[in-house]
């Protein structure tokens, strides 16, 4: 009988049934197979198998023999988050917001406006799963979906006299100013970079548009957050905002080398992964270092991201987050690249080698360019007094 690669790896010296048992490999891989059977990873094209075990085998072929066992163990320790979990997380978040307001759902619905970080349909899902009607009624809900759009609207209103009579623009701004609750919605926050920047802008906008006594409450809703991000947000904004999240991934679920903990001013925590085996944890760190030096750090397509993240390697994901979380929609750059990285054509040509990850990622930010919101916001802040006076007429 022909052995599969995984069978060969497991049959090799050092990988005995005790290892399989203590690492709970069969149960973990079976669960991942099950979760993906019913909620298929969305970034797979026709060349990828829908069977997780097959995709792992493909990935393992590109990994040297000495790392294959630990790579297999890593692939069994993925947190696969299906859309159904995220959808129920939206229900949780809404119910938490309602609970913050004396369980008065009508009051919350009538008083809220929802912004989304990097809009991708989450607002629509939020309305749908929570059965909130009237999403498209512009009199009830402003069409402004992002903080960036709000900045653009205000900038246009401020800088162009003609636009001050534009009905659509006025309706958008008015719709926001009459609300008591501003909700900032996002799916994930791992490094905290994007979310922190969006909250910062929203807090500034609130201070521009309102006096201290009349300002709306800002509630930040995150489906999945990391402790790293939560700590940074709490440190920066404190009581300025309310933060609600459905699930949190703490530092003990990150895979990063000792130096990273040192840079973050933290002690190396006892990992919860790999059945708390420190030996395997360190082996996975070595595997990721190898992967970084062989692949992603040498890929010209990732050079800008590497520079932007202000790190010396991308081996542990963007900003050294080192998670193994894979949402059904797309792998985040904060998770370990060995799980999601596909070499660019240029890299393949130059190095004559390839890698096929188990969860290929569709990159949403390639050149890390910014939107220009920051400049617009600075201009708005300079004219804060006049703008606030003018906005008073709209309230």
């Amino acid at each position, binding site marked *: 009988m022909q052995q599969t690669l995984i069978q060969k790896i497991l049959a090799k010296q050092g990988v005995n049934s005790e290892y399989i048992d203590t690492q*709970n490999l069969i149960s973990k891989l079976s*669960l991942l197979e099950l979760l993906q059977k019913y909620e298929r990873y969305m970034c797979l094209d026709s060349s990828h198998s829908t069977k997780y075990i097959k995709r792992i085998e493909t990935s393992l072929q590109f990994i040297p023999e000495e790392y294959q066992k630990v790579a297999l163990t890593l692939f069994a320790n993925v947190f696969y988050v299906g859309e159904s979990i995220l959808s129920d997380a939206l229900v*949780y978040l809404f119910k938490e917001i309602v609970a913050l307001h004396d369980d008065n759902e009508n009051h919350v619905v009538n008083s809220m406006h929802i912004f989304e970080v990097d809009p991708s349909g989450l607002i629509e899902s939020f309305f749908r799963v929570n059965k909130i009607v009237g999403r498209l009624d512009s009199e009830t809900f402003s069409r402004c979906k992002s903080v960036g759009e709000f900045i653009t609207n205000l900038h246009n209103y401020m800088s162009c006299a003609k636009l001050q009579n534009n009905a659509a623009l006025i309706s958008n701004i008015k719709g926001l100013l009459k609300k008591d609750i501003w909700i900032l919605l996002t799916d994930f926050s791992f490094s905290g970079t994007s979310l922190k920047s969006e909250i910062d802008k929203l807090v500034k906008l609130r201070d521009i548009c309102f006096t201290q006594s009349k300002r709306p409450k800002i509630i930040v809703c995150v489906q999945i957050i990391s402790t790293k991000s939560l700590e940074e947000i709490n440190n920066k904004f404190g009581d300025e905002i309310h933060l609600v999240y*459905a699930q949190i991934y703490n530092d003990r*679920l990150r895979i990063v080398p000792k130096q990273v903990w040192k840079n973050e001013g933290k002690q190396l925590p006892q990992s919860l992964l790999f059945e708390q085996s420190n030996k395997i944890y360190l082996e996975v760190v070595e595997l990721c270092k190898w992967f970084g030096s062989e692949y992603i750090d040498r890929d010209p397509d990732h050079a800008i991201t590497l520079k932007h993240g202000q790190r010396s390697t991308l081996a542990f994901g963007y900003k050294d987050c080192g998670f193994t979380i894979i949402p059904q929609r797309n792998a985040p750059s904060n998770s370990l690249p060995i799980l999601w990285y596909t070499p660019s054509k240029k890299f393949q040509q130059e190095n004559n080698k390839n890698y096929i990850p188990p969860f290929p990622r569709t990159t949403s930010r390639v050149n890390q360019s910014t939107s220009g919101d920051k400049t617009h916001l600075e201009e708005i802040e300079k004219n804060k007094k006049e703008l606030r006076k003018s906005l008073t007429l709209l309230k």
Partner: protein
Amino acid sequence: MVEIEINNLSKEIDNNVKHVFFISPNYEDRSMGFLNHIVKLKNIKDIEVVVLKLQSQNYKVDILDDLKTNMYNYAIEILKKTKISTKIKELAYPDRYTIKAIEHLKRDYVNKDKHVIFDFSCLPKAIILDVCKTFFAKDACKKFSFTYSSPQSYPKIRHPQAIGEMKGMLTQKSISRLLDEYENGTLINFPSDLGYSGQLISDQVAKYTDFEQYLFIYMRRRSPLHSFDAMAGNSNLLSEAHKEWRNNIINHFSIQDGYRKLRDIIENIKSKVGSSTKGYLVLLAPFGPKPLIVGCFIMSEILKKSEIDVEIVQESSFQYSSVYSIGLDKTYLFKIDLIN
């Protein structure tokens, strides 16, 4: 049932009201969770703590009993040091236990002017349900709250703790007999981390094609790893749920969230079934965190008011052969709205 942040416990304590707290130390670290918060209460006048000691004559495991006695003595010592009025009460359990024991607790320590806080962390399901029946009754007490402490983890090697047929906690009938009496219904399943009890009840109900099933998956807010472990323990059940009734898998992120989502389902059942539908049974199977047993009890009362038949499923209990949980994670406080 509303969760109150446990650190706000002192705000829940009204100095014009008398308070009775019931704790039940056993061999689990988490049985001390509520006590840790009681001793932090300062400048509170009327508090009495009743320390319950559950004692079995027939099922004795010496090492565990020694551990339990140590914890029990430790709790009393701490309470005495903090000069909190302490009463001690032994309850026979599981042998010779009846609801009378709880009714006597109420008679001896509680009246309609007192605020009761029960620690449910280490109490058996049957006792929790009897506490609900007794203390949620009209004028039983002024206010009722309960606490629940979750453990840090569960032991890796565990032996089966439930053997035999499942029974209904409200009617005391065996579930298989009960199911034969009904044509259709709904099973709402909160599986345990181990996976066997949820699977058992689901298999029993699956024989009846007109039974709808809901499977609640506890995606612990602060412990995703634990959630995935529990999902692995229930992977067979999860697989069947996806195949057969995929829209009825509900992920909840906190105990409170589980309760809220349960309440929504019950409201849907009420509007769908109505009191005119005879032969409809709602089976609630709370094998997950203990506060959901209270949630299920409240829902059973709501369904009964709507004349819909309901039963709460219990696995047949058996003495644990190992420590049941390890460590103490977080203590939760829940307030019950006794009027509604």
